[in-house]
């Protein structure tokens, strides 16, 4: 058990984030627990609006506030060696402690490489910024370092690109520059929020390849957020499945892909189009729609769409989190029965 603990880099426990809006309260993240292991990749999947980005934003404490607020839980970031940890969830989001973590311990890349850069500052200026800040580099040294960072992510003619503006780069280039920027201070965790959604398929593959290569070189951990099950299968060692702000299933990639437990995960799997399925049946979709973000549920939020729903039971009280096999946790009543024997 201690051995296992030493491998943990970041651990969210019962994280809760609310958005208090005029129209009501959106419980964007509900009691989410997840673990990112050192040097390993955690994939996060789930439909649009299920709270993936907000979970990621909470880890860096950049949830837009107001209206967003962390209302419960903890996010423990463990030190390089040993048990010492900081609870990110309890830090002042404007304070020095979290700023020291941002960009140095944990960095983030985003879906939209265009809007993620300031249009009026050069690429080099924006990449070098973290180095000047965290490493106290001179601006000349930061520029040199930016050039090698650009070279490392495979941007040709980096000494020229470094002085260009973001709009002068193509989409794929920009995402590479974004990665160079995030990795400039060799963080221990890289959060990638749909890093390839805005790119075309060939570029997607290149970017993922690059991320994997850099992960090997740097030994950093990653949290990859995506809609794309293929990306998860390919990149991740562990997977967390989100539904309506809940982490409904967490396990390693083999467990999740070979023995999915939660009915929602199974539905997701069934919805993947495949060549052999095409012959005999139509593309399966999950019945019903994602619930309105303002809705409140006494029981399981997936109840109405769930093919294995147990009336009464699932509707009335929130489902428990059950560890079915070691390291494989699911939030569902179906397994409570089995756990109780």
């Amino acid at each position, binding site marked *: 058990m201690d051995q296992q603990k030493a491998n943990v880099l970041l651990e969210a426990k019962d994280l809760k984030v609310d958005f208090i809006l005029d129209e009501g309260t959106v419980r964007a993240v509900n009691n989410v627990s997840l673990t990112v292991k050192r040097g390993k990749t955690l994939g996060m999947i789930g439909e649009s609006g299920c709270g993936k980005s907000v979970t990621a934003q909470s880890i*860096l404490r*950049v949830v837009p506030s107001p209206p967003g607020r962390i209302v419960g839980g903890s996010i423990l970031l463990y030190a390089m060696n040993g048990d010492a940890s900081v609870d990110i969830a309890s830090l002042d989001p404007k304070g020095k402690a979290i700023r020291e973590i941002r960009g140095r311990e944990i*960095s983030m890349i985003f879906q939209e490489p265009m809007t*993620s850069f300031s249009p009026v500052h050069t690429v080099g200026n924006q990449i070098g*910024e973290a180095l000047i*800040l965290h490493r106290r580099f001179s601006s000349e040294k930061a520029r040199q370092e930016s050039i090698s960072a650009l070279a490392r992510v495979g941007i040709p003619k980096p000494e020229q690109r470094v002085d260009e*503006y973001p*709009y002068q780069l193509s989409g794929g280039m920009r995402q590479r520059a974004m990665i160079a920027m995030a990795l400039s201070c060799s963080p221990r965790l890289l959060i990638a929020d749909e890093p390839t959604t805005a790119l075309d398929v060939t570029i997607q593959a290149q970017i993922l390849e690059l991320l994997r290569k850099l992960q090997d070189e740097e030994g950093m951990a990653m949290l990859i957020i995506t809609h794309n099950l293929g990306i998860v299968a390919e990149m991740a060692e562990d997977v967390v499945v989100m539904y309506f702000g809940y982490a409904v299933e967490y396990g390693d990639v083999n467990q999740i892909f070979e023995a999915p437990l939660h009915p929602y995960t199974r539905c997701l799997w069934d919805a993947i189009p495949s060549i052999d399925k095409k012959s005999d049946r139509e593309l399966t979709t999950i019945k019903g729609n994602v619930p309105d973000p303002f809705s409140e549920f006494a029981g399981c939020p997936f109840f109405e769409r769930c093919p294995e729903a147990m009336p009464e039971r699932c509707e009335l009280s929130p489902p428990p989190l059950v560890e079915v096999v070691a390291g494989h946790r699911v939030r569902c009543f179906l397994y409570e029965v089995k756990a109780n024997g």
Partner: protein
Amino acid sequence: MLGYILMRLTHLIPLLIVISIISFIVITLPPGDYLTSHITRLQSQGTSVAQEEIERLKRTYGLDQPAYQQYLRWVYRIVRHGDFGMSFQWERPVRRVIGERIALTMVISICTIVFTWVVAIPIGIYAATHQYSFLDYLFTFFGFIGLAIPNFLLALVLMYVAFAHFDLSVTGLFSPEYAAASWSFGKFIDMMQRIWLPVIVIGTGGTAGLIRVMRGCLLDELRKQYVITARTKGLAESRLLFKYPVRLAINPLISTIGWLLPAIVSGEAITGIVLNLPTTGPVMLQALMSQDMYLAGSFVLILSSLTVIGTLVSDILLAWVDPRIRYGGVSEK
């Protein structure tokens, strides 16, 4: 950048020619001219004007020539000698009539612009970063009042307050002992002691407007992804604010500098009259009403040229601060 400026300058020349022609047409367009109305006025007062006297006057002012020749003569003199022609009404060269007034107007206007920006930008930034706070509401409240009160009314109120409570007479730009004196350090100090009133009066509306614009632009920018990116790098909030969103929010305001230039000369005629300021506004109003052709025409010409030059200045400033414009702006989403 230099190429861009040169290109824009060469575009300026044909534009200025067209403007001068239009200015001239505009001033000759209304039926009658100053001389006709002047003679009618004299005759109605019972003074008979001899025919040769009329002819002489016409010759002096060049009114006997065809319009295009009058135009060419006017433009030639402006370009060669800076001579804008004679003002009929003042019976003095136009340049003498408006020269010092333009300079003083510029001083007031530049002070007003500085006042507006220095007050409005920080307040706008505060209001945007503390949206819906008490002070935000307070600034919004005063902002709308500032926008709603006509300047001349504000001028009257301030003059009354200054006079009634502080026993100050603050009309005019100079106190009587300096008004006719030539320039000296004392006169300058005297002006500075009085200039604040017109600056506040003229600047209030603009300040209120600029606060709203700055607040709105900055709120837009603050929501953008690049702000979050910068935050995830670990930048402190204040440094981040001024390096990224404030910088981008000010960009569109720079284009408004261009419109300020013509407003400098034409603007605030009513305030000028109420406060008895030696500025251009009141003179221009008179010239237009009495068909003082060269005086009015010079105003139209100067105003239009200032508009064009102002736009150019704005564009150059914008290109300087925003690389997307500098490099011919590829807009891509």
